[in-house]
């Protein structure tokens, strides 16, 4: 009984500590293109065994460059890239990796099972064929030509190809684009299972909800530099606190209709900012409960209270410089 009760806590705090083996690293990597564009500027990133890391950033931030370097598709201008202690540009280093890219057109004239057989053959100890079909949800469409599949089915085949070799390090680039809710949830469940089995997953996505629910660690990149790194809760707090007042305690957003003026609000301990827009007052508080008690005591006519955790979207926009 007590073991069952303890389990959720253990999972919630399951951010691997530095003593867990590092599976992939970018070490002081700079990538400069011949055109002069600096895609990555002195970036260091470590992926540890068993964690799901989400890489977030606006378009052109350097996410795809970072992931391509880790996949061995590109070489750094300076710095080192390492997966399982080897250079990812070597074929043999990639025997333990699986990749899912946003591919425009996979060979349309090959059947699903032919694609999977082809990719399984690259690896010395691939996942069982039946398991791949089940995990990727491809029952019933194995004999269809790739070109005959719907967008969501194509995504699932690409996911299957990433898992074909039973890899220990998996790169997923926008894995749930075009999937319906059921397929998306199912893929999330599979990704969580992978992490539970000790695999490492690096995920790039524009769906912040996906990063929020899947990732144990979020890395935000903007203009070639890492802006923020931490658990989803930490990133959300960092994004919504006043710049300079970085604290990792969880911040709450309190919205209400009240007559209390701004200067009094700011004097309440724990309030980091207060804005009044017409009728509505928005308060950022690092100690939500005591702030609420103060507010309710100060103004009996206060109404329409709404208490929320900061959204990852707002944190993300704040961190990557798109302020209102």
């Amino acid at each position, binding site marked *: 009984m007590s073991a069952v009760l303890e389990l959720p806590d253990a999972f919630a705090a399951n951010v691997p500590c530095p003593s867990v083996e590092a599976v992939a690293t970018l070490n002081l990597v700079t990538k400069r*293109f*011949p*055109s002069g564009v600096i895609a990555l500027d002195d970036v260091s990133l470590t992926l540890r065994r068993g964690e799901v890391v989400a890489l977030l950033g606006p378009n052109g931030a350097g996410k795809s460059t970072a992931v*391509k370097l880790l*996949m*061995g*598709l*590109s*070489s750094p201008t300076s710095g080192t890239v390492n997966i399982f202690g080897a250079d990812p540009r070597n*074929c*043999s280093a*990639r*025997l333990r*990796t699986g*990749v899912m*890219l*946003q*591919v*425009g*057109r*996979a*060979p349309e*004239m*090959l059947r699903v099972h*032919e694609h999977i*057989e*082809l*990719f399984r*053959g*690259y*690896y*010395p100890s691939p996942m069982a064929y039946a398991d791949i079909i089940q995990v990727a949800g491809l029952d019933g469409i194995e004999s269809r*030509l790739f070109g005959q599949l719907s967008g969501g089915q194509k995504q699932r085949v*690409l996911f299957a*190809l990433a898992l074909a*070799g039973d890899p220990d390090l998996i*790169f997923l680039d926008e894995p749930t684009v075009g999937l319906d809710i059921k397929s998306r949830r199912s893929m999330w469940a599979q990704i969580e299972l992978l992490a539970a089995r000790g695999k490492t997953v690096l995920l790039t996505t524009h769906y912040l909800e996906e990063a929020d629910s899947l990732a144990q660690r979020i890395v935000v990149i903007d203009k070639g530099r890492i802006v923020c790194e931490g658990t989803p809760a930490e990133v959300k707090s960092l994004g919504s606190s006043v710049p300079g007042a970085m604290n990792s305690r969880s911040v709450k957003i309190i919205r209400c209709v009240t007559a209390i003026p701004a200067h009094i609000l700011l004097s309440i301990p724990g309030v980091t900012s207060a804005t009044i827009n017409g009728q509505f007052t928005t308060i950022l508080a690092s100690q939500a409960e005591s702030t609420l008690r103060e507010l309710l005591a100060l103004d009996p006519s206060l109404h329409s209270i709404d208490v929320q955790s900061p959204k990852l979207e707002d944190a993300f926009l704040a961190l990557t410089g798109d302020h209102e």
Partner: protein
Amino acid sequence: MSTATFEFPRTNYFTRNLTIFLREARYEFIRLLRTRSFSFSVAGFPVAFYLFFGIIMNRGQQIGAISVAKYVLASYTVFGMVGAALFGVGVGLAADLAAGWLDLKRASPMPPLAYVLAKCCSAVFFGILIVSLLALIGITLGHVSVTFVECARMFALTVVGVIPFVCMGLALALLVPFGSAPGITNMIYLPMSFCGGLWVPLMFLPHFMQTIAVLMPTYHLGQLMLGAFGYASRGTTLSHWCGLLGFTLLMLGIAAVALRRLEQNS
């Protein structure tokens, strides 16, 4: 005893790569075969041309000791295999590159050589397919008589002769953006075939065209194929092989430079 255990991993590595290559080649060929637009046109054009120019138009004609139908058979088999190489490998690679599929393959543990060799092999298979089709038409409809040795020489030449054009396809795919790849390939393929004497025999072309023909790899391969039938008209066999070799090296050089440029920009 110790050497046996030392060699085991090496053989394993080799067999695994061989299996990967064979599977790659098989699926590449199946995929091209299933792509009706490719398989029908790459085989259809030489067949159509041969039927018109070799069989129907010059019914039973001879020029001296040369059977026109047999002469033209040699030219159009070369025309067909060059097309198979340029469109199968060249345009195919350009498509994979543009779609990002090649990135996925490169990010996997697939040895890159397996991919290139597989494409080369499927071009060879298509070449043999086309040559067989044309030979069949020639023998049945054109009353062409081909000895077994001549047949063997024809197939052997097909297997080797495709290679310079596979390299050309590689170079084109790496240089030319995918959208314009088919158009540019045609713009090179058709004039190159004509100037090499594959459509109209060289002896009927104007004098200056006969001189520049030496620059065309299609001319060299065409002459070698005619030589397989005993019809060689100009140059020595060695000079033709040298011409093809030089062309292959040139194409590989261009491909290497284009590849480096692509990698630097990625």
